[in-house]
């Protein structure tokens, strides 16, 4: 708070005496408001007008007249804090995308390995529009830095539980990884837990060479490593603050085992984790976007409620837009563009459904019904999943509601039906699971419909209960992966 007071004080001191008439005009050149400028905080102008004093956000307006502030005083400045990978890879990609999108020139000043200052300038006038002072920090420091006003924008892996506004800008996942010299490609969840917590101290236990297991973990990151079992007090693990350093350490040591974000895996190789029933989903761009990989992590762009300059608000809006997705992907993160996976590419999942179905006629009929419903469709990479033990959508899925609604409103699926397909885990009676999965599909359909301009797209619902498991139900993560509402695009029932 003190920082902000000082900033506001400095702003008023730095501004020339505010006097004289000003006219605020919109982008079309039409006058919006006239008067005498009384005071200003950033782009918030307080004017004495013929109707009395008025406070107006001048961010979208142009000021003309002798009383207007020096344009140089209107440069936006924001401190950005986040994990090293997000500050040094995701933020530059977003800023490059934003500069391209707006036709601005981007420059940067290196202060040291942790701090970089980015400048956005107008191409022709060279006027400095915005400065982003970026600083790398531990994931678990981002929220407190936001609350203490040390930073105005945060980039991190942790969902804020404090009064912070946040949006999901990209996706990532926590993956176990080894060196390419380690021949192990797959482990069970139980084996992975044993390797991480020291129960299995040598790779020989898994039939490998007698090489000690060297565990590498991130320091100060709130990643859901508990998904891999209890490893909290792993002694002797090497801790890293930068995931790229962790990846390099793992890649160059055949005995190493690391837990790190998928986006930073570098030349380390991900280990595929299977459940006791044998089902496994490797981490890939598609399985992370679809959240079929269990340890998926959304990346949050966070800010406190305070008013930001228009250009900073525009940057935040850009980072969530479809235009930003290519830049996000090029930086090595998983974007949120909506992809389609054709039925023919889902052989494994269909096989799982057939193998795990009962042998009675009713079960066989259910599988036939499901395949008949989905046969001509494509699954979207966007999936709706729920928080642990709850019917509330998780953060990535909340973000998906608007994303899907926007795509429907833009006519992305015109002429087709959007089918919300509910699935459940296998715990409890099958009939109850079927009803539960249908209820979930209906509630997601309702939420999407409420935000969509439907046009030529019909939203329908189907439910198949526990029919197509994606992971073993014997672990909490497996159940969570199985409880889902998939979205399928199918040929319109009307035209069929």
């Amino acid at each position, binding site marked *: 708070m003190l920082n902000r007071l000082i900033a506001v004080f400095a702003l008023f001191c730095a501004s020339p005496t505010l006097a004289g008439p000003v006219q605020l005009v919109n982008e079309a050149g039409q006058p919006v408001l006239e008067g005498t400028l009384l005071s200003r905080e950033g782009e918030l102008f307080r004017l004495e007008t013929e109707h009395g004093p008025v406070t107006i956000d001048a961010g979208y307006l142009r000021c003309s007249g002798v009383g207007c502030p020096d344009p140089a005083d209107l440069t936006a400045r924001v401190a950005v804090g986040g994990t090293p990978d997000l500050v*040094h*890879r995701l933020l*530059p*990609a977003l800023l*490059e*995308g934003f500069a*391209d999108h707006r036709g601005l*020139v*981007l*420059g*940067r*000043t*290196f*202060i040291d*390995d942790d701090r*970089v200052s980015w400048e956005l300038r107008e191409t022709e006038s060279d006027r400095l529009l915005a400065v982003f002072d970026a600083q790398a920090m531990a994931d678990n420091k981002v929220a407190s830095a936001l609350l203490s006003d040390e930073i105005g924008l945060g980039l991190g892996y942790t969902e804020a539980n404090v009064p912070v506004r946040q949006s999901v800008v990209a996706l990532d996942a926590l993956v176990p990884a080894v*060196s*390419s*010299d380690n021949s192990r490609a797959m482990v069970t969840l139980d084996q992975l837990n044993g390797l991480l917590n020291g129960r299995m101290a040598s790779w020989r236990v898994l039939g490998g060479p007698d090489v000690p297991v060297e565990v590498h973990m991130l320091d100060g990151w709130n990643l859901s490593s508990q998904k891999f079992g209890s490893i909290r007090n792993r002694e002797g693990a090497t801790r890293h603050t930068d995931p*790229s350093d962790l*990846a*390099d350490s*793992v*890649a*160059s*040591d055949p005995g190493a085992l690391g837990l790190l974000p998928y986006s930073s895996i*570098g*030349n*380390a190789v991900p280990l595929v984790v299977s459940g006791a029933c044998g089902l496994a989903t490797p981490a890939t*761009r598609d399985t992370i976007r679809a959240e079929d990989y269990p340890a998926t992590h959304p990346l949050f762009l966070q800010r406190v409620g305070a008013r930001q300059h228009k250009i900073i608000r525009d940057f935040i809006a850009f980072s969530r837009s479809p235009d930003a997705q*290519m*830049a996000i*992907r*090029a*930086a*090595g993160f998983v974007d949120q563009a909506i992809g389609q996976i054709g039925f023919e590419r889902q052989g494994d999942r269909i096989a799982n459904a057939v193998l795990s179905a009962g042998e009675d006629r009713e079960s066989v009929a259910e599988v036939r019904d499901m395949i008949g419903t989905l046969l001509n469709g494509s699954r979207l990479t966007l999936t709706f999943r729920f928080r642990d033990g709850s019917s509330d959508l998780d953060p990535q899925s909340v973000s998906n509601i608007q994303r899907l609604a926007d795509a429907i409103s833009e006519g992305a699926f015109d002429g087709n039906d959007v089918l919300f397909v509910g699935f459940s885990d296998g715990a409890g009676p099958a009939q109850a699971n079927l009803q539960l999965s249908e209820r979930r599909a209906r509630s997601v359909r309702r939420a999407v419909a409420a935000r969509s301009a439907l046009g030529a797209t019909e939203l329908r619902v189907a439910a198949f209960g526990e029919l197509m498991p994606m992971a073993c139900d014997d672990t909490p993560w497996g159940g969570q992966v199985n409880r889902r509402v998939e979205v399928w695009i199918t040929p319109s029932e009307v035209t069929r």
Partner: protein
Amino acid sequence: MKNYVTPSVRRWVLIFSTFGLAFLSGHLMQSSRGEAPERPLVAKAINVPASPAIAVALSDPPVMRDRILDTRATRKGSCRPDLQLTRTPDAAIHVTLTAPCHASTPISVRVNELAATDATDARGHYDIRLPFIADRVTVSLGFKDHVLTQTISNDDLPEQQHVILAWHGPETFRIRADMVGADDQSANEVVTGNFVRVGQKGGAAFEIFSLPVDTSFSAGVVRLSVDATVTEANCGAPVSTVAYQSGYLGGLRPTEIAYTMPDCDRVGEVVSLQNLFRDMRLAAR
């Protein structure tokens, strides 16, 4: 007073004779072709038979004095500066300049938007290899008085990715590429084998590092960093460079980089800037 012809008189004679000839031949040309283009007059005036050197002169007229010097040399042999761009078997560009009358002469080098200053060798040759930094690469080599330009296209070459540092003044930065723990040992050779530096110390220069986008290597990441050497000249001072990297929309994207070098008690140290470039990927994941 042995020498009656002082340098200034010589200059006047030279100018007069040149203009006189120019006037004459211009008159002739006007009568024969019915038009009076200004530039060819000079070329005609020095009575050089239609040669490719004239074509160069026409595109960028030199001052007369140099033209006459060129002519003298032409009588001895070919003085015509010649710029050739050829595609090498390994999909690079071979730039060869032959300029026998411009031995050990400074030249400006432009490769699309990149600029450097360099010099021809004692025989008037200049020879560099460049990667295809774009589908169409235009190379311009300029002497004080004229510029030679050639363009070469990359029709069906495998796509490459590049990072480039461009600077002016003392050499401060060097690109570094590391491939940690790659499962293919030969990948390391690739990482060290694709650097190109153009330009001389003290002038404008640039360094390019290139990698194919898709190779036979298994997926791998090349970490890029920039080493900056702290010297007596730059310690504690601001230094700048322009960094180019293949953008996500394709094409090279420039970013101006500013950095303040460490204090002078660290002269001799090499500072490594880790986050100036994005990592390169050898193969799509």
